[in-house]
């Protein structure tokens, strides 16, 4: 097991995740979906988790929420503490009292978590009745208030709508209303705007950030979009092949990425600038050659080694430690000094 420090912040953390491991036991062996991930979430901050598909973002979130059913054949380890409460050892009943109350989650596709045969008002009210023991009438009124808070026009009438009567953007607003109804300390949002058009994405992101401010909820925002990271987060974690490879305050991460994978990601996006001037007109984009490794085999050494232009012999033998290189800036790379010195 890797030694401390593996996280950038410890003071004032609402959520502390330590050495989280979730492996799926399949017919052809274990899939190491999350392979030793640690991080802290500060009170009221927005922390982004970024990485390409399959790197373990959703499985991390679902593991924290204890939403991965046992019958899928998985093994889990590690610790998740929410304001001092260890979640991994709670009974399912105790966990139900916390989920949707002190920590909530929203998903890319709201339809998968909304009940199609209940009105949206009833779904918000239900959460309030269970967690806050509000009587029926008060819960309904509060549900309508929540719909107004997420800026659904004509909330009293909309509360009586079924999910399929709403647009994708409105459904995501409803999900946010349900998730925030009990004023949780942490909201985990897994690609909440990926299925939405950009103009609707902008509405939803603005709404989330504004409500976060108002309710001082910390947000863990999972995304594959570095643009979303740059525009929303205070800090970000970069994941690769089930591991955290870099963690830094956002401005620092973009100015001074220290892990070769993070650099590759940042350099491979076609860049727009706010002024509308592109840096690289029809020039070649930087590619990351090759593909992500299979999670079915145990990865020895650095998971990025087969694709890394900085790799040295040691990289395929020893897993690099996640060491601090600047304030709050961790990177798991043996060759950080060379990477930092290289031109981007």
């Amino acid at each position, binding site marked *: 097991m890797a030694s401390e420090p593996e996280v950038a912040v410890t003071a004032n953390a609402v959520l502390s995740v330590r050495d989280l491991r979730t492996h799926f036991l399949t017919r052809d062996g274990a899939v190491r979906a999350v392979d030793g991930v640690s991080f802290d979430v500060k009170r009221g901050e927005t922390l982004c988790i970024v990485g390409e598909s399959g790197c373990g973002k959703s499985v991390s979130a679902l593991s924290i929420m204890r939403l991965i059913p046992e019958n899928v054949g998985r093994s889990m380890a590690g610790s998740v503490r929410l304001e001092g409460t260890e979640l991994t050892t709670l009974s399912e009943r105790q966990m139900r009292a916390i989920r949707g109350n002190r920590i909530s989650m929203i998903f890319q596709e709201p339809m998968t978590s909304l009940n199609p045969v209940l009105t949206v008002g009833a779904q918000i009210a239900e959460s309030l009745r269970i967690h806050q023991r509000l009587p029926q009438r008060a819960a309904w009124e509060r549900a309508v208030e929540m719909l107004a808070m997420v800026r659904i026009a004509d909330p009293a009438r909309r509360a009586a709508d079924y999910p399929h009567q709403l647009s994708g*953007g409105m459904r995501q607003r409803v999900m946010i209303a349900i998730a925030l109804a009990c004023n949780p300390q942490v909201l985990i949002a897994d690609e909440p705007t990926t299925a939405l058009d950009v103009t609707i994405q902008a509405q939803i992101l603005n709404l989330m950030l504004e409500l976060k401010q108002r309710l001082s909820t910390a947000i863990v925002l999972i995304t594959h979009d570095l643009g979303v990271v740059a525009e929303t987060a205070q800090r970000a974690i970069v994941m690769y092949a089930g591991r955290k490879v870099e963690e830094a305050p956002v401005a620092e991460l973009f100015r001074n990425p220290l892990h070769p994978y993070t650099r590759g990601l940042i350099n491979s996006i076609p860049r727009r600038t706010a002024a*509308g001037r592109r840096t690289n007109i*029809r020039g070649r984009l930087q590619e990351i050659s090759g593909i992500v490794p299979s999670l079915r085999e145990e990865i020895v050494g650095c998971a990025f080694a087969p694709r890394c232009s900085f790799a040295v012999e040691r990289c395929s033998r020893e897993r690099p430690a996640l060491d601090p290189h600047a304030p709050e800036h961790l990177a798991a790379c043996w060759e950080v000094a060379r990477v930092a010195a290289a031109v981007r």
Partner: protein
Amino acid sequence: MSAPLLRVTGLKKHFPVHRGLPSRVVGQVYAVDGVSFDIARGETLCLVGESGCGKSTVAKTVMRLLAPTAGTVALDGVDISRMGEAQLRAHRRQMQIVFQDPYSSLNPYLSAGAIVSEPLTNFELASGQELEQRVASLFERVGLRVDAVKKYPHEFSGGQRQRLGIARALAVKPSLIVADEPVSALDVSVQAQVLNLLIDLQEEFGLAYLFVSHDLAVVEHIGHRVAVMYLGRIVELAGNADLFGAALHPYSEALLAAAPVPDPELRRERMVLQGDVPSPMAPPPGCHFHTRCPYARERCRTETPPLQEVKPAHWVACHLRPVGGPFGQLTR
């Protein structure tokens, strides 16, 4: 003057909406509602806009995978929009399509080699050893290993499948490739590989692209000119530098403002549009955009603004952008 490679004029595609039993037509989806543009040889024209605005329908109608409701599609000066299949065959070779999801567009029961050979055999362009050589060189050209000819689509990664789709499209040496969201399903590092490949191929073979995307950064990178669509119509058509440097249509402005910029130092207050895109079954009268436009005036609710060339090669459909007008900030 010679005709452009592709000229689309007044293209409309309406889909009837059926309800009830026995089913009757209760309305129309105005998916594409009067779209015109040209593409020159070797040029990339990008179509951008939010989902449902009609981009794929334009792509499919241009390819004649759908028959147009009205309007013409001329390839090298020849109108193909109403041609019968037999006649169309000769023109089909000139245009090929690459889809977003290579998985659903590749026959899962054919080997990769067979997928790329098929169009060559179909058009009787090669056979025997020559066929094998052509396929091998196509594989090499798109960055696939030649021994991958024996593999099946499911054995490839997403990026490799897209390369395979591109090899198939290239096989018949087309002059136009219609690419419908070809990199939207790919992760950014792989997306970069495919975009680089498309740009290289364009330079090497003088290909023209009709490139459909909802991602403005991708469009800015790959396009020469851009058409912005909203509810079945083009609202702005301009060269890349003009569109990304000085968009003139309020919807283009909003799209540009909404797209997140991967640079935290450029965090900004941005124009956020209110509301959702209206249904293409009942598009708002007048300017389709008036229900969300922060600058809308009375006249916008009733009068449809025509797409006009307000500056050389810069077309805009907005009442507030008259021909030759001053192009300052609009007031709300």
